[in-house]
């Protein structure tokens, strides 16, 4: 058993719902008790969808157990087929139904429906949402892709690429697909099929006709893209085009697979990020300490942007999906940080508190954490909140996506001169770091909530006393580095066998640890 306060991923059948809801012409019959219908609100409320997800739940009750849950499932499949007339159907079980072992596959087969019926075997007690989405997409493509499709030579026609991975309820998937489709168009590449989002079963049949597969979201698209590569010999484009540099790399990778010249498009791109980052007012961003956590693909891509394009210092990097832990570990090496691979919210909170970042780039969960610790935060990854579906066009991929990242990450920070004024006049009763950034209206907010991590930290030495003057001086250090300054000073004092920390110790330690 795992003690969980908040969870980064839902169960695997929610991943399957994200695939089914993103597509057209697919219906999902889910053997599940009534409470599982909550999942509909993820789509109708968080994503503001104007139609119910194409999901029928059997909603069996205690009195049905051991009597006729199988019959209930079979009639649900039959009724759903008659009412919704889908072109393909998914059948599966949620966690509770998995325990009662009603054999959805066999029951569905016995009905002999005139459409493909795909059984989803998603082990709820082992796997999670992203895996469920990837597996569902793969099962659909395995069943529906027409393996007799043969594509002609590239010469004399525009190359074609599929966009794989976007789903319903994805973080900015809606706008990323538009942005990348536009970029491909500029490169002279047509989009064949976008899937799962927007695809019908008939669209999946013609996946093999494209020249390459772009894996926009490896979490959901990677398994399928590998199978397509093996089956149709289609190369996979693996660079996730998030950030300026990654978008340039992506353009070159696509161009190589499609036999086009990317350089004119790259040269003419309209991204403002490079200049905005180089303009002198951005100097204050230099070496800002940033902690990054999310799904592996978004976290890794964000780390590159943070480091190379914003000039931040990556002080923490982690992901919640173990399936892609290797990619994250490789990236963590690049930035010299310990990779944090966990889906334990409390462990993430502890790691953030210990790293004393000045900015957190995370998920909705890290917004909770950052709010508690009073650290600025921007969201870069699912799990999502209603605010992550903005009304405006807001991709995070492609050249426009790079602009969006610049704005989104800079917005929560205390800016330029204001930061200096805060440092200079720390005692100002209405203008201090505890009050927050003035442009965010944070005045009068409470002090950060302490997270008990110092107790585990070997660098903390409790016996050394601080003189009142030194304690007061410590309070003048910006709150996000105050913890570190305290630990460094105490370590410095302990190493020298000092009995107390006074003003001199504080400044001696400062010069000792100065970079």
């Amino acid at each position: 058993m795992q003690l969980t306060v908040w969870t980064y991923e839902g169960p695997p059948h929610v991943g399957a719902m994200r695939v089914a809801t993103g597509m057209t012409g697919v219906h999902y019959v889910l053997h599940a008790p009534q409470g599982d219908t909550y999942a509909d609100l993820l789509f109708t409320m968080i994503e503001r969808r104007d139609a119910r997800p194409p999901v029928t739940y059997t909603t069996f009750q205690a009195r049905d157990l051991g009597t006729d849950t199988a019959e209930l499932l079979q009639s649900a499949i039959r009724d759903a087929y008659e009412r919704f007339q889908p072109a393909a159907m998914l059948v599966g079980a949620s966690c509770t139904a998995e325990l009662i072992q009603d054999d959805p596959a066999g029951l569905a087969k016995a009905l002999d429906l005139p459409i493909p019926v795909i059984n989803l075997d998603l082990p709820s007690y082992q796997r999670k949402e992203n895996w469920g989405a990837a597996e569902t997409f793969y099962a659909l493509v395995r069943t529906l892709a027409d393996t007799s499709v043969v594509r002609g030579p590239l010469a004399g026609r525009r190359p074609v690429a599929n966009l794989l991975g976007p789903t319903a309820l994805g973080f900015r998937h809606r706008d990323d697909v538009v942005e990348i489709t536009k970029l491909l168009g500029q490169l002279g590449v047509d989009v064949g099929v976008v899937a799962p989002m927007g695809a019908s079963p008939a669209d999946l049949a013609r996946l093999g006709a494209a020249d390459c597969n772009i894996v926009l979201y490896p979490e959901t698209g990677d398994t399928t893209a590998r199978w397509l590569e093996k089956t149709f010999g289609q190369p996979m484009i693996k660079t996730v085009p998030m950030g300026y540099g990654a978008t340039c790399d992506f353009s070159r990778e696509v161009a190589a697979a499609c036999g086009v010249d990317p350089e004119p498009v790259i040269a003419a791109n309209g991204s403002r990020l490079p200049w905005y980052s180089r303009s002198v007012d951005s100097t204050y961003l230099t070496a800002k300490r940033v902690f990054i956590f999310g799904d592996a693909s978004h976290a890794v891509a964000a780390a590159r942007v943070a480091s190379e394009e914003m000039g931040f210092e990556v002080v923490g990097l982690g992901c919640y999906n173990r399936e892609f832990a290797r990619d994250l570990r490789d990236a963590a090496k690049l930035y010299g940080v310990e990779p944090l691979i966990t889906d334990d919210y409390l462990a993430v909170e502890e790691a953030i508190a210990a790293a004393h970042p000045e900015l957190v780039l995370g998920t909705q969960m890290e917004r909770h954490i950052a709010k508690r610790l009073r650290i600025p935060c921007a969201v870069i990854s699912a799990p999502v909140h209603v605010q992550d579906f903005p009304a405006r066009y807001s991709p995070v991929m492609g050249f426009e996506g790079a602009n969006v990242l610049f704005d989104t990450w800079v917005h929560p920070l205390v800016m330029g001169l204001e930061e200096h004024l805060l440092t200079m006049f720390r005692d100002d009763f209405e203008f201090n770091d505890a009050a927050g950034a003035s442009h965010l209206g944070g005045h009068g907010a409470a002090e950060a909530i302490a997270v008990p991590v110092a107790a585990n930290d070997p660098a903390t030495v409790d016996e050394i006393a601080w003189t009142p003057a030194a304690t007061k001086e410590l309070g003048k250090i910006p709150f996000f580095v105050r913890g570190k300054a305290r630990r460094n000073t105490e370590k410095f004092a302990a190493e020298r066998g000092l009995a107390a920390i006074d003003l001199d110790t504080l400044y001696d330690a400062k010069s000792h640890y100065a970079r």
Partner: protein
Amino acid sequence: MSVAVVDRPVAASLPPVLRERGQREVFCGLTGIIWLHRKIQDAFFLVVGSRTCAHLLQSAAGVMVFAEPRFATAIIEERDLAGLADANEELDRVVDRLLARRPEIKLLFLVGSCPSEVIKLDLSRAASRLEAKHAPRTRILNYSGSGIETTFTQGEDACLAALVPSMPAAPAGAPASLMIVGALPDVVEDQFRRTFADLGIPAVFTLPPRRAADLAPVGPNTRFLLAQPFLGDTAAALEDRGATHLPALFPFGVEGTTAWLRAAAAAFKIDPAHFDRVVAPGRERAARAISRHRAVLTGKTIFFFPDSQLEVPLARFLAQELGMVPVEVGTPYLHRAHLVHELAALPTGTQLSEGQDVDRQLDRARAYRPDLAVCGLGLANPLEKLGITTKWSIELVFSPVHGFDQAGDLAELFARPLNRRDRLAV
């Protein structure tokens, strides 16, 4: 998969009931934790369930609250099911870790879920075992919020029923006391306490209490009012302890609140003239506040999808005091005994439905095209897209709506979507 039966009315006054058994689009009883964990300030709710349970709580809560929760999920994993780990030992370990982290917790509920029920994990034995270990610092109780047994607000019923055996026995010969049963917003609870004090009813207790240590005494001299219509098991448990239920309309609107207060006043033999004097200002304020919304609501048709079991009392209030026309009043479960006064006060011929077949019910809603549909979060936007104005039913459970001083707010909750529809020019 659907079975629809039209019940013959048992009494001439009981409206016809359409009973349906198909797909239900409702929350499970775990959802009650979202408000219960704020109401009992030193209680913690540990769901023993699956990742789905944890995801439900955070999704239901994530739409609405953004605060440090006093609930968590012990997620059952493959190794617990495969027998590689003893589920009971695992649970003990999780509880130890939790109580070490949150030492201020005085009452811990182990909350059963669909998977824990199906694998027959005995949480009542686990609770006694763990209580022996953690007493007297923490009391440990259990109830089931599983979706195979409970619907949405029934989770609160199960939770409160689980508290009843722990309530101290009122000493024999104790003076008569009044208990308000059902989690109410603190502000409403305080208003009712003031009214009962003004009426001259001295000993007033609430279930649940705000602090675990304040569990009310119960005994043959306890009279209780149900503040919510979904508390069947809790009422039965209190009656088992000798307490007497005071049946009444539920305290929504002028008439509901008056009748509810009067039931207590009559039981405590309060002089009717004194009663009238005490409630007159509240009645006037409520009537005035409600009247502001009458123009918008009168004559408008309303369709209730089943959700919280509040549907029948709310339909009664909206019909009786605001002139709305209920075209279908769906409820997950119709507690005929507790609703007897409510059903009698509904307009003649109101179509009731119990249970659900959501696709067929949506067909009916499309056919009726009501002016307002009251439904859960999963259905609201799809209905809006069809041009049917909606009211999220969950707000009715999350807002102060009981009593005289909230009657206007309650009316406003129904008027707001219609006002909004009229305002918008896009």
